[in-house]
């Protein structure tokens, strides 16, 4: 799990988790409404700075985490590049039809995906889930029973992994043969999913009974082990995004990299 690795604490770790989640979520919605390729590239750089320098994780780990994102960038942009609408033809071969418009639009979608990914990873790398849920209860008034359900569920993951290994050994001991190809996949899916799910339901039920006995479903004015608050660093993060995003916008208008100012067709 990401949060069990060692890392240095940076200012991003100290920001109120609810506030951070709200900002990241709002940025995510804003990015959906950016159609200017130059703007979105600058935007990505602004987000990338946080990822590269302020998560407090070693650079090898950051590099490793970024591999799937780069693959996603390629796969998510190619579909639009090859099959998008456009008039300025660059290349045509069978069904594939690459145009200037579809190319820029494809790159745009790829960059947008990268922004989502990087924002998400920055959040995940700098936020302990325990603090997030305590903060959601205290700042956003999430009902304690929801928060504690999540926290309990996260704690159960290692048990599920162990159970899966047990299941694998058990099936091996019994000499279970799988069919070849896709049917084999279905066999495996059936043999693993049903026992794992049913055991999890039973365990969740037992755990819930125990938690109810301890009044975890809880009254509104309960006390908390961790107290989450706000600090001036929250304002720093807000200012960082306001300044960097405005700068990205004006740089995109005065110093564009590409002529594409709106990647939508027509």
């Amino acid at each position: 799990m990401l949060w069990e690795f060692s890392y240095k604490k940076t200012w991003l770790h100290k920001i109120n988790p609810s506030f951070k989640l709200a900002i990241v979520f709002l940025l995510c919605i804003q990015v959906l409404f950016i159609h200017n390729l130059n703007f979105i590239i600058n935007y990505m750089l602004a987000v990338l700075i946080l990822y590269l320098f302020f998560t407090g994780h070693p650079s090898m780990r950051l590099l490793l985490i970024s591999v799937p994102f780069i693959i996603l960038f390629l796969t998510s942009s190619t579909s639009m590049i090859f099959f998008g609408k456009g008039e300025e033809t660059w290349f045509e071969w069978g069904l594939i039809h690459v145009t200037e418009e579809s190319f820029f639009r494809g790159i745009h979608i790829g960059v947008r995906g990268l922004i989502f990914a990087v924002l998400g990873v920055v959040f995940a790398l700098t936020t302990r889930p325990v603090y997030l849920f305590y903060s959601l209860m205290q700042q956003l008034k999430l009902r304690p029973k929801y928060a504690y359900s999540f926290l309990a569920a996260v704690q159960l993951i290692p048990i599920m992994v162990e159970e899966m290994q047990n299941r694998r050994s058990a099936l091996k001991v019994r000499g279970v043969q799988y069919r070849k190809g896709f049917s084999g996949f279905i066999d495996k899916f059936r043999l693993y999913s049903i026992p794992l799910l049913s055991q999890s339901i039973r365990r969740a039920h037992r755990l819930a009974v125990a938690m109810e006995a301890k009044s975890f479903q809880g009254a509104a004015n309960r006390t908390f082990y961790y107290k989450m608050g706000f600090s001036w660093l929250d304002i720093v993060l807000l200012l960082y995004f306001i300044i960097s995003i405005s700068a990205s916008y004006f740089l995109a208008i005065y110093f564009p990299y590409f002529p594409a100012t709106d990647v939508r067709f027509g």
Partner: protein
Amino acid sequence: MSKGLKLTDLLVTVIVAIIFGIIYKIWGPLYGVLSTFGLQVEQLIYGMWFIAATVAFLIIRKPGVALLAEVAAAHGEFIFGGEWGISTLLFGIGQGLAAELIFAVFRYKRFDLFVVCLAGIASGVASLGIDYFYGYINDLVLWNFLLMVIFRLLSSVMIAGMVGYTIVRALEKTGATSLVRPASMEDYKALE
């Protein structure tokens, strides 16, 4: 008896959702591999990302469960480092709401294959709606766009609908679901 979700309902929903969150995370690279073939074949497995809502609802059979499960599963995928990062949450909320809406239309009283498939389709439509902004899918050439829509809705029915329904039918045989479901008329009759 209170009408809202009890701690048991919540915990079961969230744990089932987290299991699917792990599957959602594994589904990402698989989707990526299929994407390299082009022609939208990757859409044929897209329906897996709607399955948490339908399975959780079929297990618990209470209002709010579908939405909670889909959001929790998306959150799981997100904290396990899913490729789509924060947008996963947005898709989760949209897809969960859509499935919830279908179950609400039937007043949370129908748990058959038809309603579950319909909920899958609704989630599929919601995801397409978000993709309209995210991926400009309407700017694909028409045949490619239609291929995408058809494949995605097909997989919604196949995976979120049929596979989800089959899983829960199998779970019912294990007896685990009777722990968490509200007692039905048949249960009372069995007591007499």
